Structures are given as C-alpha cells and as structure tokens.
C-alpha cells in the first residue's frame, strides 16, 4: 500500500493541477502511523471547504481524513447536507447519491469491492449528518448493522438539519425551539448509540471532536474493527454554531461544555468481545513495530 496508483506519467506531469502534483509528492498515503499530527505538515486529503468559518464539522473532517488508516484503499459514502459541500474537495473516492441512503450505498459498494478484490483491503466509511443517519435513513442505517455489513458509519451530530436552515431533527435535544419545533421539541434525543449496540455494532463511541488525538484513536479503531469483524458506529458532536447562536470562535468551547460528565456528549464507548481482542492484537503489533523502529534508530546512531 503506497502512492503507486496515484503516480503521474512524466510526460503529463507539468499539465497536472498543482494540488495533484502536491498530493503525489507529499500526501501521507502509505504512511503507517499517519494521524492528526500530519495536519499542516504534509498534503492533506481535504482542500478548501465551503463550510461556515469556525464550523466544528470542518475540523472533524480534517481529523478524520488525517486518521484513516488506509486512505489509498478507502472509499467514502456521504449523504445530502453540509457534508456534501465538503466531499467534492476530498481526495479519496466518495459517493453522494441521495438523501438518507448512505448505508444502503455502502452495503452494495462494500460487497462489490469484496467480489472484485478478494483478499485485498478495501475500507468503506460512511459519513453523514444526523438527519440522514437517524431520521430519513434510519431504516437503512439499522438494517446494514443487522446484516453485519463490514463498514464504519460516522454520524456528524449537530442536533438539527443545518444545511436546510436549522429544523428539528431526531437527535435534537428535547425542548429545543427550532424551525418545525415551534413550541420546543417534544421528545427526547434519539438514543442511537444504545440502539447501535443492540443492533449489532461491534464498536460504538459517542463523543465530541474537541480532542484530535481522541478522534484519531476512535477512527482507527472503528475502521480496523469494521474491516475485520463487523459494523462500527461513531456519533460525533459537531455543533452548528450558526443555528445555536454561537460565534465562529465558540465551537470548541461548546464541545468542551457538552462533553463534561453527565452531559449528553460525555465520552461513552462500547466494544464487543471479538473487537476487544482485535484491538489488543493491534496494540501488541504497534508496540512491536515501535520497538523495532527504536532499535533500528539506536543502531543507526551507534
């Protein structure tokens, strides 16, 4: 796994867009320990985006794309919403088709890639908003989990329909006054992380994206477990600062406030037994790799 498939023919090099030349030269494809710390130091897989200034979703996008363990063989599936404004600028193959069908698309895609590339790793990662995941697409979200489809589902939970202008969603908090909830939302925030666990997900995390190192860890875990064992689900709080009346510099504080103990985004995780075993094996291998690298470095300096 490397940059072998994105090399540019020498004869065409000078006419390729500069950002593509930069991708081939400097992207972290093939780097085993790629992660959030590469942001800003090498070519990123996301270019400019058209989200609002200070939108936590844009941070989440950068952390996730920097943390994918295998971007050179990862296909992403999106849905309609703010995320669909970002995906055109992402340098991994990504599919937008309809609103809410992302887990159905991913099911067909993952199976096609398994038929076409037996014995090779092809990761599929779904990234969609809470309206797509929990409201219009809930059926397909759950059914993919029931069938034990081997891909990761990431929900950017901003607790409302942001792209259409701030309407009530199933993941909105009870009592919140929004468009289409003129007297306040009348029912509780849907408990999708618990539903995910009961529906067969092997790894479920509910958190904010305030800490890039945490995002990196949960993304790597989720993708590895989905690849080897079965469905995984991440629910990440990416507040819509525009619709909750915050300023562009207040997104981070909003996330920090919401992840305090007993708040709705206090860190919660569920890991199935086979997934725990896999993570232990991966951690052991990682330790071995680091020790070997250290030894090699020691030999070189000696």
């Amino acid at each position: 796994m490397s940059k072998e498939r994105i090399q540019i023919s020498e004869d065409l090099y000078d006419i390729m867009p500069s950002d593509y030349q930069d991708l081939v030269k400097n992207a972290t494809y093939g780097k085993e320990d790629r992660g959030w710390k590469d942001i800003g130091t090498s070519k990123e897989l996301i270019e400019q985006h058209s989200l609002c200034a200070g939108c936590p979703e844009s941070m989440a996008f950068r952390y996730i794309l920097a943390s994918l363990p295998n971007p050179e063989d990862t296909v992403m599936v999106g849905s309609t919403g703010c995320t669909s404004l970002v995906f055109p600028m992402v340098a991994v193959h990504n599919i937008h088709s309809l609103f809410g069908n992302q887990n159905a698309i991913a099911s067909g895609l993952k199976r096609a890639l398994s038929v076409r590339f037996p014995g090779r790793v092809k990761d599929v990662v779904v990234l969609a908003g809470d309206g797509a995941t929990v409201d219009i697409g809930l059926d397909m979200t759950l059914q993919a989990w029931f069938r034990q489809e081997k891909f990761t589902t990431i929900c950017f939970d901003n607790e409302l329909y942001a792209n259409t202008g701030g309407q009530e969603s199933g993941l909105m908090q009870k009592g919140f006054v929004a468009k289409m909830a003129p007297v306040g939302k009348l029912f509780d925030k849907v408990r999708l992380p618990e539903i995910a666990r009961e529906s067969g997900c092997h790894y479920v995390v509910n958190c904010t994206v305030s800490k890039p190192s945490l995002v990196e860890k949960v993304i790597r875990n989720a993708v590895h477990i989905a690849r080897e064992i079965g469905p995984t689900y991440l629910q990440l709080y990416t507040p819509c600062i525009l619709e909750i009346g915050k300023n562009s510099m207040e997104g981070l504080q909003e996330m920090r406030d919401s992840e305090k103990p007993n708040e709705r985004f206090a860190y919660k995780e569920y890991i199935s037994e086979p997934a725990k075993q896999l993570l232990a094996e991966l951690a052991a291998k990682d330790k071995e790799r680091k020790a070997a690298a250290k030894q090699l470095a020691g030999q070189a300096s000696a």
Partner: protein
Amino acid sequence: MADIHSVIGTKNKKGQTYTDTWKLMNEAPRTPSFFTGSEVIKEALRRASCDVMIAYPITPQSEAAALIGELFAEGYIGDYFRGESEFAVMSQCAGAAFGGARVFTTTAGPGTMRAMENFPMWSGARLPIQMIVTCRGINSPLSIQPDTLEIAYLLNTGMLVWHAETAQDFFDWILKGYMVSEEPDVHLPLALCCDGFFVTHTKDVVNLTPADMCLPPYDPYRSPVPCMDMECPPVRMMRDPFVMKSNYISYATHASWQQEIWAAVERSRKHSIHWLNGLIDTENTDAEIIIVASGTAVSQGREAIRLLEDEGVRCGLVKVKTLRPWPEEEIREATKNAKHIFVPEFNVTGWLAKEIKATIPNPERVHAGPRVCGGMTMPPEIIVSEIKTALGMKTFSLAGRGS
C-alpha cells in the same frame, strides 16, 4: 486495466466459457426448453457473468428473485442478499455499480414506485444496472394483478426502457441488454419490463443458449465516469458537481449533464438496433389498419389480426420493443399508410397511445384502445370489436355490458 477480449475462450470458476456475445446469441446452438418466465430469468442470469444481485419479495417477481438466489448458492453470482425495501435495494444496487460490479435486480408495481427516487440517480451517475420490472397494478385498493401503468413513470428517468413480449424476448434481452447498457457511449441503466404473470407465471418454449457459455465480464474501466474503487487516481470532484451553488455555471453544469444523459439514451439507439434487429418489428404495414403495441398486447393484437383476416379485414402490426430509446422514425415510417391505428394497452391512461400521437402526423388516426387494467385480460375479441366499431362494422355485444 483489464481487457475484456482477453478472457474470451477462457473458463470461469463454474467451468463456463467466456464467449463473444454476438456469437453466443447468434451462432451458438439453442436448446428448446419448457420453462416459466421466472425460470427463464434464472437461466439468463446463469449465463450473464453477474457480480451482484440484490433481491426483495414482491409479487410477481419474487420467484425469479429467489431462483437467482439458488444460482448464487451454486456459485454463479458473486454476491446476493435480500435488502430491506425496494428503495434500499435500488440504492444497494447503485453502491455495487459505483464499485464496478455488473448488477442485476428485479422489482414490480408498488416496489418500482417506492424505489423511484433512485432511477434518475442511476442514470445521472451512469450506472449500467439491469432491473427487471414484472409489471403489476399500482393502484389502491391493493392489487397484485397485471397492469403496465408503472412503465409510464419510468419513461422520463433517463433509463433505457425495453418492453418484452415473450419469455424468449426476456431470455435474449437480459443478455443483450448488458451489451447495450455497458457501451461506453451509453453506460445507462436498463429497465427491462414485461407484463407480470402473463410472462412470469406461464410456461413457454424458450430456446436457450448452452449453459456452459457465458457473457464476458463487465469492465468498469470502460465507464465514462470513474469507478469508485480507488484503483484510479482520485480527483477532488464528485460525480454531481456544483451541488447547490446558485449561479449560472452551476445551472449550466446541471443542464449539460441532463442533456448528456438523454444524448446517451439517443446513442443507445444504434446499439439497440444492432442487438435487437431494430427497435420495432413490423408485419403488413401496407395495410390501412395497423395495431401498434408493446408487451403481451402484441400477442393479443396478433391473434386479433388472425380473427379479422377470417372476416376479410386486413390489418398490420407494429411491435414496439424499446420505449427508450423511442423508435420515433420507425413508427412514423411503419404507420405512414395507415388510416386507423389501434393501440391496445394494459393500463388505464394509455401512455403508449399518447407517445404515438406525439410522434406521427395526423394523430387523429390513433384510436387509444382497447385498454384494460387492474388485472383484466384482453381477449383478442375486444380488439376485433374495437376495430370493427371504429370502421362502422357490425360487431357482437360483449358479455357483461348489460346491453
């Protein structure tokens, strides 16, 4: 990149020989077999080198969808599963096609309607999925009976739409359909329709190609848009660019994309003519009376023509095979001598008659009927009666009309 021609003559894991499709369809020996339409769909799929089939139960396609599951169990299909609804199934088919698979599915009636949002997306994304539509009623109160109204809704999706008359058409067109759909200058989904029950649940003699010969595999790298498998360089642009920018460039992009879909439908014309031996079949088009029909209405029309012959009335026939691409020139030419054009249909609105009226000069020649719907059969006698009434000839009174 794979070259599909390089596999011709080699064997797949089931021991079938990848065979040039033209030779397979036109030169390979045929064995007459007595099968239901559903079994014929299975036999066509056995020879189709299909990567992914996704199933969902709805009458009258359930049997075919389940039989293809048996093929999967035998190892003829790459992957197969039951989806959760037709909307989901058509999205799953899209996902598999985005990933470079040759994809097959079957649906009917209310299922077609439930899945409808997917179809313009399929053609917009240039996914050459093949979908069998075994038409049935979509009305309320609930009906499972034959009725072709759902085809009318498919005509403007940008899909290719073909209407099979017999199980033999079905067998041949499933295999030929992939050849047209997968052409780089077409690369569009195909809705291959038939009249439910009449074709799916009746037995007929069908001439099958040898079971040990199959189609060459689909090559996703001949697609006019990138296959989403990260095997070719990713570009920073998705397939539906300029999502929701409100500016002229955005509108122009969307407009030209839509025009390109319909240009691709037009470009399928030459391939369809090549594989189907014309978009229409004709008999005696020098007659003053002509029946134009598609699906099983063609068979009923043919029988009506025989009855009319006995009474000395000469009548020609046009069998419309492809609805998209629409055989505009062909129908105009075939009906140029006709003083009366009858369009028997199995639906209440008469969508085929409307298409024909919009195509030919002097459309008052078109008699939009007889039409039956809701599962009613169409005895040839009512076509005869319609024609004789229009000609001012004495006709028998039909039972049940109370006269």
